[in-house]
């Protein structure tokens, strides 16, 4: 009986030969994670269980990334709660400010999430790790508390939905544009409870960074997980980082899918999602000229080195439009250091942007770039809900790093070709 990659990983971790959609199973977990917002609630629940240890101190990752460096006294207290728990339970993978990065940029980079893994995280964007050929999904803090205790979690096997991306991407189109286009097609509940499996020539052409971006936003279509087949690029990425064995799984050619979507990516322009849902995506040509107050480049969606390279290519030798604030946030310390060595940070500062230490900050209206009433932001983040980045009457448009950087130069939403000519 044939299975999808998602079903194979679930079956392997449930100790079964096969599983089918709809089946309830108990799975062994390879890693569980939480951040400074979700861990305190999990810790509170964990303490109710009356245990003196976690299932494995090496397989719990705690990443205080949302409100750190501490924004205020309340967030300092949440961060303290996580730090004290990490110390008293001997959590190996606790990342203090200085080592900390945005969790979904950090854990792949640190080799803590690997192909074939079964991962849950108390953060909805945990689905990011599917880009390495792992099953990863977001849960709440109580599920996480039980997982920290047991190293297990129960799941309903999801139906799989296959997305085939044919053709070659146009210049300035990346993983963010493909996923915004896809969510625009199927809607914010278009993959509800399902596994989104990304395949096709364009997915093979995407870098690991672009794949992480795509899987990161599977949750924005309601999916349980996003996933794609590992390949040589995956191997090259993980083999120098992995600290434990990993395994590549592939969907059988005749595996069953509840729905199949096919796209010709050569027809896809860089995308912009209008307020107030990620499904409101349109070609950038239909968004040209919308005046902006702020541009943010970063986040668990687009805070990786490739994203910064794209932004720097456009910002090099140019200046930020005087009306704008432009905030650039490398996702991790490693990304920050790499950007420094490549001269990208110099480009950014010379252009008139501000470069921040890694943090989720502005994406969720937390800190480091809150919007006032009536302000408009263009952001490489993942959600543009009402009030997401600040005042309920502010607006957020979503895009990839190329459109963000080009728009930073002109002060309004702009196709990168307008700034760069036809040169990619």
């Amino acid at each position: 009986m044939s299975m999808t990659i998602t079903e194979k990983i679930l079956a392997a971790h449930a100790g079964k030969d096969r599983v089918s959609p709809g089946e309830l199973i108990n799975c062994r977990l390879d890693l569980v994670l939480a951040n400074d917002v979700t861990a305190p609630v999990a810790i509170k629940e964990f303490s109710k269980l009356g245990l003196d240890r976690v299932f494995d101190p090496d397989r719990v990752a705690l990443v205080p990334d949302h409100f750190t460096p501490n924004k205020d006294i309340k967030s300092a207290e949440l961060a303290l709660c996580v730090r004290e728990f990490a110390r008293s339970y001997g959590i190996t993978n606790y990342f203090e400010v200085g080592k900390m990065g945005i969790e979904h940029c950090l854990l792949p980079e640190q080799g803590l999430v690997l192909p074939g893994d079964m991962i849950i995280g108390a953060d909805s964007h945990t689905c990011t790790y599917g880009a390495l050929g792992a099953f990863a999904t977001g849960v709440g803090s109580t599920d996480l508390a039980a997982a920290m205790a047991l190293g297990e979690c129960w799941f309903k096997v999801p139906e799989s939905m296959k997305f085939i991306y044919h053709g070659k991407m146009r210049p300035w189109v990346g993983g963010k544009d493909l996923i915004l286009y896809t969510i625009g097609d199927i809607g914010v509940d278009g993959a509800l409870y399902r596994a989104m499996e990304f395949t096709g020539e364009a997915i093979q052409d995407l870098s690991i960074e672009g794949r992480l971006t795509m899987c990161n936003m599977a949750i924005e279509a309601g999916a349980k997980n996003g996933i794609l087949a590992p390949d040589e690029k995956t191997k090259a990425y993980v083999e120098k980082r992995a600290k434990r064995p990993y395994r590549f799984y592939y969907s059988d050619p005749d595996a069953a899918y509840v729905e199949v979507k096919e796209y010709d990516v050569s027809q896809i322009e860089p995308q912009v999602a209008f307020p107030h849902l990620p499904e409101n995506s349109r070609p950038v040509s239909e968004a040209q000229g919308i005046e902006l107050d702020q541009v943010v480049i970063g986040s668990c969606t687009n805070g990786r080195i490739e994203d910064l390279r794209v932004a720097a290519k456009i910002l090099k030798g140019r200046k930020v439009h005087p009306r704008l604030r432009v905030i650039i946030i490398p996702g991790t310390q490693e990304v920050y250091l790499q950007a420094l060595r490549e001269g990208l940070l110099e480009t950014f500062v010379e252009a008139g942007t501000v470069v921040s230490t890694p943090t989720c900050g502005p994406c969720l209206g937390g800190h480091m770039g809150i919007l006032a009433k009536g302000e408009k932001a263009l952001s490489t983040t993942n959600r543009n809900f009402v009030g997401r980045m600040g005042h309920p009457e502010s607006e957020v448009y979503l895009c990839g790093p190329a459109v963000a950087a080009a728009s930073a130069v002109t002060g309004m939403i702009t196709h990168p070709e307008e700034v760069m000519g036809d040169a990619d």
Partner: protein
Amino acid sequence: MELRGKAHCFGDDVNTDYIISGKYKFKTLDMKELAKHVMEDLDPDFARKVQPGDFVVAGRNFGCGSSREQAPLALLNAGVGAVLAQSFARIFYRNAINTGLPVVVCDTSLIESGDELVVDLEKGLLQNLTKGKEIPIKPLPPVMLKILSDGGLAAHFRKYGTFHL
């Protein structure tokens, strides 16, 4: 488990930021405090109007967005007895069960704000007393019903020491 209360209706895609706005939920673990602001961007009077046991009734994809458990906890602490929707975002659905907030999938187009409802989770039946209609509900998976009737996952876990699938 029989639940009884009045309906408070909302639309599709009610996200976790609407349920409890980010500007409050990061500040405190005090759910009673959070409960004062529940659903306020959609209905500023909701927290004041809702009576213990009342139902939040919505369209598709209720609870989309973040994984934070503050969303179901704020509803619970505001006195909401259950959420009824055409469909739920999956993380919210799990979190609701884990924290002891009943969630019911059914055709909510037959319910208006103010309707008196009775829900029987075991029998899988919803009665709209005001309209005199019976509405079938999608039964919860047995494991979820078990967790819910134990009072949430922490209580379930204390009882069995594991998941009792």
